[in-house]
């Protein structure tokens, strides 16, 4: 097991090494001329994430601890509500299924500072999570394209740590892109577009309420779609950085844009399937809970766990996809 003589080491969990060939999806065969589809990438990536329980447990921790910053003050603050068990007139309050709004109002009045402070503690946590997600992305992508079969949390964090600063540069590059998309959908271009259908582009001045409504729905769908593609593009750039062990975020953005243009349906399908599975997990878990009439608290574990797995799956699959095209 000496480092000086690696050839004597029995490596049992390594991928076959062939630097000349593009990386293929997990378990996929190298079929010349035909690349596998999104389900194949996602399936392999799902196995990759599920086979790393230590990483999953680690990623679960912040999602159990950080929300406590918001939830604990609420829990403690809700104590005075204990005697309020009935409505005026006597009908019993059946929280959380049915609740009278006055209970919330009395509660809010009784805690004029605690509740806003609890809510205000969330935005810094959002920023932290967004940045921490760069480590997570780097970790999963690194594991996915690694030539060695690594399972340890240490490897995961090692990949994530190495990728953090290059990824952070893509994060910063993403900000103006988000602003641009938002400007398109809510700024001058959107105003011009709304103006084609409504006087002064104002739904309140339209002869028909329906016109304004449908335009608003259309705008939201376009915006959501644009956000989705933007996230995909940024992740692809990160995959590009990971595969080539490169440092330039700008060049990675350009390369990944080119990759996107060449494989729009493959990438779009991969992303959509990934998000679709995540939604399915969420909706399925909730549906089962409702059928079983189960309490809410198990969802505190089930939902984040599923979402961590799905997210890991998406990142790993994307990295493998990018690697398979990076000839």
């Amino acid at each position, binding site marked *: 097991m000496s480092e000086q003589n690696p050839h004597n080491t029995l490596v049992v969990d390594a991928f076959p090494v062939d630097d000349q060939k593009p990386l293929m999806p997990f378990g996929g065969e190298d079929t010349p001329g035909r690349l596998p589809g999104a389900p194949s990438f996602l399936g392999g990536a799902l196995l990759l994430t599920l086979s790393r329980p230590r990483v999953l447990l680690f990623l679960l921790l*912040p*999602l159990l601890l950080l*929300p*406590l910053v918001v*939830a604990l003050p*609420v829990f403690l603050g*809700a*104590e005075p*509500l*204990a*005697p309020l*068990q009935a409505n*005026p007139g006597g009908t019993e309050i059946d*929280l*959380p*299924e*049915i*609740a*009278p*709004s*006055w209970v919330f*109002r*009395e*509660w809010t*009045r*009784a805690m004029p500072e605690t509740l806003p402070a*609890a809510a205000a503690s*969330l*935005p*810094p946590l*959002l*920023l932290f999570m*967004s940045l921490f*997600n760069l480590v997570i992305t780097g970790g999963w992508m690194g594991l996915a394209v690694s030539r060695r079969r690594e399972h340890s949390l240490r490897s995961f964090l090692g990949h994530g740590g190495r990728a953090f600063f290059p990824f952070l540069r893509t994060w910063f590059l993403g*900000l*103006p892109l988000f*602003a641009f998309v938002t*400007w398109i959908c*809510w700024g001058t271009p959107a105003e011009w577009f709304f103006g084609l259908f409504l*006087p002064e582009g104002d*739904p*309140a001045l339209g002869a*028909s*309420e*329906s016109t*304004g*409504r*449908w335009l608003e*729905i259309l705008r*939201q769908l376009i*915006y*959501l779609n644009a956000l989705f593609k933007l*996230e995909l593009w*940024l992740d692809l750039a990160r995959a590009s950085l990971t595969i080539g062990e490169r440092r330039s975020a700008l060049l990675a953005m350009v390369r990944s844009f080119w990759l996107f243009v060449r494989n729009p349906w493959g990438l779009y399908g991969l992303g959509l399937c990934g998000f679709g599975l995540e939604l399915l997990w969420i*909706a399925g878990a*909730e549906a089962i809970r409702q059928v079983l009439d189960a309490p809410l608290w198990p*969802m*505190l574990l089930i*939902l984040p766990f599923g*979402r961590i797995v799905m997210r890991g799956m998406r990142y790993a699959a994307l990295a493998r996809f990018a690697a398979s095209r990076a000839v």
Partner: protein
Amino acid sequence: MRHMAVLPVVLLLLGCLTPKGSAQEAVAAADLQYEIDVRLEEDGRTIQADLVVRWTNTGKAPTSELHWHVYNNAWSGPQSLWLQEARRHGDQSQPKVVGDTQVEQVRLLTQGEDQPLDWNYQSQPGAPLDRTVAITPLPRSVAPGETVQVALRFTAALPQAFRRSGWGPHGYLHAVQWYPKLGVFEQLDGNWQWNCEPYRYLTEFYADFATYEVRLTVPERYRDHLVATGSFLGEGPQDNADGTVTYETFAEQVHDYAWTVDSNALLMEREFHAENYRDEQQEALMARALGKTEEEVRPSSTRMILLIQPEHEGLADRYFDAVGKALYYYGLWYGSYPYPTISCVDPANDARQTGGMEYPRLITGGARLGRLATTMSPEGVTVHELGHQFWYGLVGNDEFRHAWLDEGFNTYSTARVLEAGWPPELETWSVFGREVAGRLPMTLPSYGEGELRSVLDLTRWESPDLRWVPALSYELRHRHDLERLFAELPPITAFPRVEKMRVTDNRRVMDHDWTEPLQKPTMDLLNSSMRRVNAYRRPALTLETMGRLMGEERWARVLYRYHQTWRFRHPQPQDFLDILLAEAQGAEVIGTEERVAIDWQSFWKHAYLDNDRLGFSVHHLRNVPAPAAEDGSARFTVYAGIRRVSDFAVPVPIRITWDDGSSTTHVWDAKTWTWDQRFADAPMRAVRLDIDPERLLMLEDDWLDNSLQLDGDDRISWDMGIQVMLWAQQVLQYYGGAG
């Protein structure tokens, strides 16, 4: 036009002006008649009119002037008092297209005279160019009992829909306050004088009951697209050679005249019959309270007319249902609606600012597509505006000074109608333009422009304040319905069914500042927030508290008597107090151990004259083991303490719940500051102490300190905590993937 003067007499003889059962409720004929010949120009927004008014001085002093409201001039430009006050209150809105009334001719026509009169606009303090009040000096005084007749010719250009009145660009016109209208000659501050205030930001209207004969000539496109305060006379509109049609209309015992045309809207009519809306419990209550039979208290029939937008056609049943239920309950509680028709207007989308208003026999509602039936839209606003037919339309208080006499009584009544007539309204969240039931446990804070920390939630980036660099601001992400759906997963994280209990929901006013007492004139209140407090929910809660304290039967009698006594008249707050004192004498708060009489003068002083808030709090509940009884069973000495934490002293019930689930209710007169009781030799522990367990005191400041439970149940804390945790978890995960 003169021939129209005989119409009321003829129609009264024919018995077709008022519905069955209403004649006995009309206490006095109007001493004021308006005859108006109106022509709406082709532009659909300009009105040419000839107006003749006959006014009889019913006061006890002569007057040599007539004072007129010209409300439409509030929209003529920034010099108006209304718009100046709006700016002072931080409201920068202006009409897109201004409105203006020009009076071209004023003539005195009394006793064969026909002489021109002056028309002088009265400047107002702080707004010298305001033109919402005009004075016509008369050549001689009008003595008490004498009648004067004046003719006006005027042109009124209405504004583009703005604050209650105006037009929409696609064929809608809501003509309100469109004509010069006389003020009220009455006793104010001990003197007989004109009560004719300018149109002010915080107030609405005040006028005398009158008879209106109005000929409405409108372009042909408005045929069958018109509703008005008056009933239509004849078989239908008269066709004119110039391509217009003329409707002859008539209304009596109303203090305003409004009309609406909309060439795109649909006109529907249905008959209101009380039999379709019966609530046997309420009918029995009213019958007992008034000493009548249920048949006698049941409201009489009337015709409901709806002018509705085509895209809201699917909401027509809900509009009619709301009007019908409101007519039923208000009619049951306060006496039948006395007019032959009630019209309801669903405003055009481009003129929504005219929605949610009341005029005699005509109201405007408001609805949006995609709302759940349980959001009570359009029901909520329709019931409220219909209720104004009773509170303000029939009991015509001075809204400049005592807006609470109509808004407060009506807010109180609206809540009761909504609770009686519909299941509870649900809180909702919105997605894809639709409302879905549920309430998120919290919301992310939203930061204003210029706040650097807004970058924390990835919504906005602001450049630092560098003098030599122009300020930059980027909106990074826009929080919209769909993003909220994905970020916060409301199907899971929302409380699934949060019900707004309308009566209790009026307690939201507790969140606001009560700096000024109810007695302060509405027009002089600090701001619009104070107006909302003092005119709407605070008096509603005060009335609710009165009613709960004195019991529903006695309270039903108080309201009915007050309404009937002041129907077609102008009450003052003292008039309500007089009836309250007469009807509510002897009312007591009753417990299992004591009963205490309520001092209504004291209640009025605290609630109306002073600015007192009402508050009690539990201080202690202790069980001290005492020597065992002879049979060896345990004994306790129980100590219970309550504090009154405000000046408002009113009898309050106090309930002690014992270990076996039984309870005893005491009544404390609250004349001292504390209630400190010792119960010796109690056979079991007291486990709970409740102040006002039945929630009689809707004015109580804080319900959370009204109860103390030993061995408390923390179920609610867990429910709240888990829901918030789940929500925060999802938000963090969503934003964790962003960027």
